[in-house]
């Protein structure tokens, strides 16, 4: 019998962590993540989950505890939002540099100043270059499924994975979620094997100071310098799409749900205009595309599921091949330029023959509501401008008083 529940995104995430038999949890409360930290405490204190729960005094320590525990071979979990994620920044680099398969939820929230507790994706986008894999979820079912997949991915490529989902829009919204059985998850997710064992019989110093160039060890064998280690991390992330797609495929086979590997498409086969976004806004875009089709506009959606590593050029180009216009909706901005997703897409199109007009929108910052109807209007107004020959469109701030 299927175990279907009506739960919030935070509850789905807590359930997933429990199903993955996490052994050490360290978390510090912040809206909208708090409920997740609380649920996990309840699981641990009531004996539903056998794990060490370290109630740290801040997020820098939360990530540090995960790093320490993962280093000695425990499967770890943490979650945060917004300023909590920013406070971890130093440790995010350290976790990735240490090649530790930490899985963390980022419950997306705008960052201060000024304070906002509401949703956008500026927090995780600002961590783009930390060496973490970043996956974005559309709904609560996808949160649960993605966390389980994230451990498989992380423990295969030895890189940390950030599972991002929108604060309040998903974290506090009830949706039906099907839970796999613990036995099925255990079968899908073998126990974590650390890449290095800290042992008195084989003493070593991990992450000691490195010189720019390679150096020989005691036997004269040349060992990595700093740059070689950086290259290996880059290489691991560059090669991870294969793993991400394969894990998604096996998950679909085992549990019957396919969330797309690196990206997913909605009615793109013959689409002339493609809407693109990440997370819950991408789900909203599918509603908008359907509505546009009813008005005779051939619209489709490409949802970016994995933002880092960025989907490979081949896959991106194939997804957008027939589009004449590409309209982006992003919940973040790279100040002084445009939305980060827009820049990356344009770079992927370079030299590919895709010459569609691209119109970027910054939308929904600090929780400003974005309805499917507003996406429809935005797309129509973009198309009208493009039809008039305007191809160099500046980023539009949707639903924002810009006078």
């Amino acid at each position, binding site marked *: 019998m299927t175990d279907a529940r009506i739960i919030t995104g935070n509850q789905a995430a807590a359930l997933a962590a429990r199903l993955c038999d996490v*052994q*050490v949890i*360290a978390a510090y409360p912040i809206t909208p993540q708090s409920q997740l930290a609380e649920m996990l405490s309840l699981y641990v204190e009531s004996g539903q989950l056998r*794990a*060490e729960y*370290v*109630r*740290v*005094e*801040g997020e*820098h*320590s939360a990530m*540090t*505890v*995960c*790093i*320490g*525990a*993962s*280093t*000695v*071979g*425990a499967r*770890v979990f943490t979650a945060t939002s917004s300023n909590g994620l920013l406070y971890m920044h*130093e*440790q995010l680099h*350290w976790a990735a540099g240490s090649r530790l398969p930490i899985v963390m939820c980022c419950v997306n929230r705008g960052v201060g100043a000024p304070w906002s507790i509401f949703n956008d994706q500026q927090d995780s986008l600002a961590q783009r270059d930390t060496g973490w894999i970043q996956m974005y979820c559309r709904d609560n079912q996808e949160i649960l499924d993605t966390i389980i997949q994230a451990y498989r991915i992380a423990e295969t490529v030895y890189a940390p994975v950030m599972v991002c989902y929108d604060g309040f829009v998903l974290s506090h919204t009830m949706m039906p979620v099907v839970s796999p059985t613990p036995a099925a998850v255990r079968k899908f997710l073998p126990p974590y094997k650390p890449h290095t064992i*800290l*042992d*008195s019989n*084989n*003493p*070593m*110093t*991990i*992450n*000691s*100071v*490195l*010189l720019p160039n390679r*150096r*020989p*060890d*005691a036997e004269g064998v040349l*060992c*990595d310098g700093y740059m070689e280690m950086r290259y290996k991390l880059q290489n691991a992330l560059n090669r991870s799409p294969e793993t991400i797609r394969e894990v998604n495929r096996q998950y679909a086979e085992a549990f019957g749900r396919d969330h797309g590997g690196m990206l997913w498409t909605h009615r793109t086969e013959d689409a002339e205009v493609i809407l693109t976004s990440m997370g819950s806004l991408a789900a909203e875009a599918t509603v908008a595309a359907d509505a546009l089709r009813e008005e005779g506009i051939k619209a489709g959606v490409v949802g970016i599921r994995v933002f880092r590593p960025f989907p490979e050029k081949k896959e991106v180009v194939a997804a957008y091949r027939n589009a004449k216009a590409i309209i982006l909706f992003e919940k973040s901005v790279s100040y002084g330029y445009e939305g980060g997703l827009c820049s990356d897409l344009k770079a992927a199109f370079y030299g590919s023959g895709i010459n569609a007009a691209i119109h970027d929108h910054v939308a929904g910052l600090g929780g400003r509501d974005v309805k499917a109807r507003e996406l429809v209007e935005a797309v129509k107004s973009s198309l009208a401008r493009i039809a008039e020959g305007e191809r160099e469109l500046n980023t539009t701030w949707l639903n924002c008083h810009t006078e």
Partner: protein
Amino acid sequence: MPQNLFKIHEKEYVLPGTRACQGCGLSIAYRFALKALREDTIVTLPACCLCVLHGLYPLTPVLVPSVNNTFASTAASASGIAAGLAALNRTDTTVVAFAGDGGTFDMGLQALSGAAERGTDFIYVAYDNEGYMNTGTQRSSATPMGALTTTTPVLTKQQHKKDFLKIMEAHQIAYIATTTPAYPIDLYDKFVRAKRIKGTRFIHIHTPCPPGWQYPTKDTVRIGRLAVDTGLCVLFEVENGKFRFTGRSRTLAEKGNKLPVVHYVERQGRFKKMSIEQLSQLQNWVDDRWEEYKKKAAESK
């Protein structure tokens, strides 16, 4: 307690070829600390001179499994290692955090306070060379009044050293000790004791540093002993809230023959611009603490 140096565990865990300076007090302290801790120990350390002592990848002179961490995170790193080991039932391993005064008194304070408040099962060692030595002898909150550093290059440090041991006492942890590499048996003994106790243990090591303090490398032990003789470094232990002087400090407390601080100050270049006023303030600061400690020792009897 070993009666003399020959009774100390003979295995070396710090081999020759460390990258520390000649005459480094930390090197002596680390050598004897690891002899006391022995196998089944994991050390976590931040950016500091100890990180330099551990050598450059892929070589290390240290025979204890160790992990580097970031400057502010040493105690949290130990918390994570301890939690991970507990989750894996590896409870026979001693987790030791080893950080400098900067990584303890300043940046690492939050993580240490958190770990101590949670009663994390680990030994935290603050080796105190009274400045940010690794980055070139800048002032820290552990630098004594009147010392020249590269960030107090003209006027000298204007404030007293932070009384960090009081902060640790306020956490009511299982064990607190102060020691110095100038008395290696005292140091060794305290690590042996700390290893046997459960819960959070804190050891402060007063660590002479020739380049930072500006004295000849041959004088490390002499300077360390003068610090004890003048009461700038007081050797004690606090276990279950009970305070007791140990070693040379106990003798000084019994005999009342503590030396004036000038004997310590005059041998170090870092104090060459110290004013007479600062010298007397430093003396008063030492005397006040000395009286406090004597009172605590009497109350703990």
